């Protein structure tokens, strides 16, 4: 499953990062790496983007970016 599939409040561990080039680098630099634990904090009133907590910082990602991040759900 991907980060985009997670419900509000869920926690997951990153397995792999898709995408390429500058966009992928940006995600890496934000600290989204394989093994990183991410939780779903809040969703925009219009359903997209979604805010995730990554390494103690809340970062909003649009759905198509989140869909490139493969995760394993944790409880």
């Amino acid at each position, binding site marked *: 499953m991907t980060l985009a599939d997670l419900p509000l409040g869920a926690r997951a561990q990153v397995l792999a990062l898709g995408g390429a080039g*500058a966009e992928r*680098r*940006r995600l*890496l*630099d*934000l*600290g989204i790496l394989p093994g990183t634990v991410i939780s779903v904090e809040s969703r925009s009133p219009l359903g997209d983007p979604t805010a995730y907590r990554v*390494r*103690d*910082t809340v970062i909003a990602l649009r759905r198509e970016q989140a869909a490139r991040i493969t995760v394993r759900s944790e409880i």
Partner: protein
Amino acid sequence: MSEHLITPEAVGAPTAHCASCPIYNSAQLVKLGIDITGYDYVVALAGNPNTGKSTVFNALTGLRQHTGNWSGKTVSRAEGGFRFRERRYKLLDLPGTYSLLSTSTDEEVARDFILFGRPDVTVVVVDATRLERNLNLALQVLAITERVVVALNLVDEARRHGIEVDARSLTRDLGVPVVPMAARRGEGVPELLAAVADVASGAYPTRPRRLPLRDPEIERAVAALTPQIEAAFPGLPNARWVALRLLDGDESIARAVADGTLGAAVAPPPLPVAA
């Protein structure tokens, strides 16, 4: 605190060349649009967005620049000055970035300034509530310059969240002074000024942590390339980092190597007497 004042009046350029003389690159700074006339030392302020970087800037300079609360707020460099222990310091606020590796405009501005402008001290503002993320940037800055002071900001907020940070442990690990502070309340500002002065004058010899590589293949490639870069640019303080950037295919660094502008990153050898 009484010692830090804005000093609008201009005096001569740095007077003596000695062991503690400034290393900043005036020609390069002029090229970057920064006037350093009348200042003894140049200090750069780096840090992640939303770490209170502008608050630290204001606390040091006494300026009341409005500090916003979103990423990328500091679009252009803010400049100011302060005076401490009879020395005049020029302070530059670099754009807030998470990293120096992915070459967005902001990151390039910050990186080029530290690399080519050779500030006498780079203060990395670190958010005590989000240490891990902020250390990522601090480690990258340490790979470019050894003249670093870490301002461990927002310790008051960290305490409210039940987070306690041991500055001495950080100092040991990073090899540079780490000053805990709550810039909004002015706490830790005198200590930060003292640390900046000590690093600028060389009174505090830093021993920066090396950029960890872990992967033996990469370590081998960097080890092969570094001596060549050091030979081409004698005295370059960050050959290992340059090697890594070249291996990563960083085009602007490759250009700087090809046309020799990387030479700007080399501080001139100390002269016994000034002309």
